[in-house]
């Protein structure tokens, strides 16, 4: 891997939602890099701030939300505070987003071709005809049979898997440098999920596009990602190479997460169980957010642990990481 600058570099990003009930610190100081051609897995439980991270990068935070700190350096430019017109040029062209629910992301009342062509014409001054040809090619690329006819269809005429492929095709249209995939297979069957994963993998390999794959499903990340970031309550608690983290988790949360995935060798026996439930992001104290559920927590955890690098390429935020097992 070359030593060139990473495609995306996030430094201490903070995105808060200033609601009436108080500040929701959905993303609270996260940093990570994504390199060219790399798949970064971003995992964590529901509500931990994965999607907000993705939207922060795109500059699409919903109303009470605001980036309150940090930098998002994409190809050398800081996206935080970039003018809306500049940001629009990056969205969809340099960075593409794929959503979780394929039923909801395509506008039900517009034809597929309209939705694809507008994505091209938003960035390039090309004729409809040319744009249409490109749209057709993109559909073919994601394995949709007879793309010419399918262009004229409406989203509801597609099955869930097909729709997700259309979404991927749209993401591909402008050959972006980075794709943010926000749980794109969560709503799909295993067999369809496998097809989507196959397309995604092929894509990164063929085009060298970098990808952030957001999911709560460790097993998916295991097969797809090169590196992994584990999020908990708005912070990244652990990151590192996929094999290292999964085989040898440092953070008690990662440890528990991996333990709670049913798998062959644990059949019939009780799964590892993280007690309690995800805390409300509104009422986070100053200390480690996981301490209420953590078996290793002690007085020290009432303070916020800083990221440490117990091993090269690994990073963990914990006072009592599972270092002894390694």
């Amino acid at each position, binding site marked *: 891997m070359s030593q060139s600058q990473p495609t995306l570099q996030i430094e201490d990003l903070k995105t808060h939602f200033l609601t009436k009930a108080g500040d929701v610190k959905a993303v609270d100081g996260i940093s990570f890099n994504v390199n060219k051609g790399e798949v970064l897995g971003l995992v964590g*439980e*529901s509500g931990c701030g994965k999607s907000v991270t993705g939207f922060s990068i795109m500059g699409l935070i919903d109303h009470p939300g605001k980036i309150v700190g940090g930098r998002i350096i994409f190809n050398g430019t800081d996206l935080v505070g970039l003018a809306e017109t500049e940001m629009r040029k990056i969205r969809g062209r340099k960075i593409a987003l794929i959503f979780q629910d394929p039923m909801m992301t395509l506008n039900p009342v517009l034809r597929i071709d309209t939705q694809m062509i507008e994505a091209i014409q938003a960035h390039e001054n090309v004729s409809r005809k040319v744009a249409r040809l490109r749209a057709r090619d993109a559909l073919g690329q994601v394995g949709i049979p007879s793309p010419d006819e399918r262009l004229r269809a409406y989203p509801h005429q597609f*099955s*869930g*898997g*097909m729709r997700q492929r259309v979404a991927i095709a749209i993401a591909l249209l402008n050959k972006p440098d980075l794709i943010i995939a926000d749980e794109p297979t969560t709503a799909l*069957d*295993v*067999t*369809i*999920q*496998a*097809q989507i*994963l*196959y397309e995604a*993998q092929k894509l990164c390999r063929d085009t060298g596009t970098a990808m952030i794959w957001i999911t*709560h*499903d*460790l*097993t*998916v990340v*295991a*097969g*797809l990602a*090169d590196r992994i970031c584990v999020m908990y309550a708005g912070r990244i608690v652990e990151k590192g190479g*996929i*094999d290292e983290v*999964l085989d040898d988790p440092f953070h008690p949360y990662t440890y*528990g*997460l*991996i*333990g*709670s*995935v*049913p*798998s*062959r060798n*644990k*059949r*019939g026996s*009780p*799964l*590892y*169980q*993280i007690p309690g*439930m*995800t805390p409300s992001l509104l009422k986070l104290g100053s200390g480690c957010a996981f301490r209420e559920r953590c078996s290793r927590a002690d007085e020290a955890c009432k303070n916020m642990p800083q990221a440490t690098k117990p091993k090269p390429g690994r990073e963990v935020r914990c006072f009592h990481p599972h270092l002894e097992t390694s």
Partner: protein
Amino acid sequence: MIVAQNPSPPILELRGISKRFLKELDFAGRMAERLGADIHEELVHAVDNVSLKIQQGQVVGLAGESGCGKSTLGRIVAGILDPSEGQVFYRGQDVALMPAAQAQATALKIQMIFQDPFASLNPRMRVQDIIGEAPVVHGIISRKEREDYLDEIMLSCGLDPSYKRRYPHQFSGGQRQRIGIARALAVKPEFIVCDESVAALDVSIQAQILNLFIELREKFNLTYLFISHDLGVIEHISDHIAIMYLGRIVESAPSEALFENPNHPYTDALLREVPRLENRHAEFAPIRGEVPSPLAPPAGCHFHPRCPRAFDPCAKSAPQLVTLGGERQSACFLNDISMSKNG
């Protein structure tokens, strides 16, 4: 001796169960059809001639892709839907032929736990009513015993009894699912149908609920029909697994045997696609195509258009589910060939 060889009947047996959903045409529709409009009655074979035996204390997993009829089958078992054809036997007795009182008792013996922790609890009832309504109505407990009984049930489902005056929305997803379980347990069931009961939960919560299922099974001597499309979960909890494809069971075997050595090409493909923690940097090799519409399933073996090993007879007739030794059953013509080769 003879008695010992003839064990008690399975707690639940399905024989030739089919369920068809028919969207009939009204008068105008029929007229239009006569006039040559492109309108037809739509017939969905949601469940097609399914037979299955479940022994007391077993956990039977039912897996398959979306729309293959898992939930429909589960509902038939739970008595929410009536089968179009076939019989359901509970402890050897045909449910349809039971006298009313017994039928009701049986209905209570078979309970169901649902997928959506939000939709499966009545948002306008307090937890105590959700759990306590049916036992009081059916005279399982008296009104006076209710409080104690509630505490007991809630505790065994890992719920704090002091929450019983709350409404469902005041609970997290995992807790809601526990309330659903408590509701089912409150009528003292013997058999529980779990329809995707953990699909909507986060992994950590999912583990809690799965553990609870395993715990309760031992504590109350329950039998589960565990429906899920997540083979990892199925594998974890089930003793025996049935794989469905487009309304039919294509393979049914003890879990170990099934995962070790899948017989049906569909099972095989499915298992290979299950993402696992151990598979890093996987090469994904998906089955092409998607589940066909149940409105117009392919002739013969429903799987043949997607099957890498399909051959002539597959398109012509549907293979029967045959016993392949032990408790394994499979419905594939390839077995005929291998058997004839062997034999």
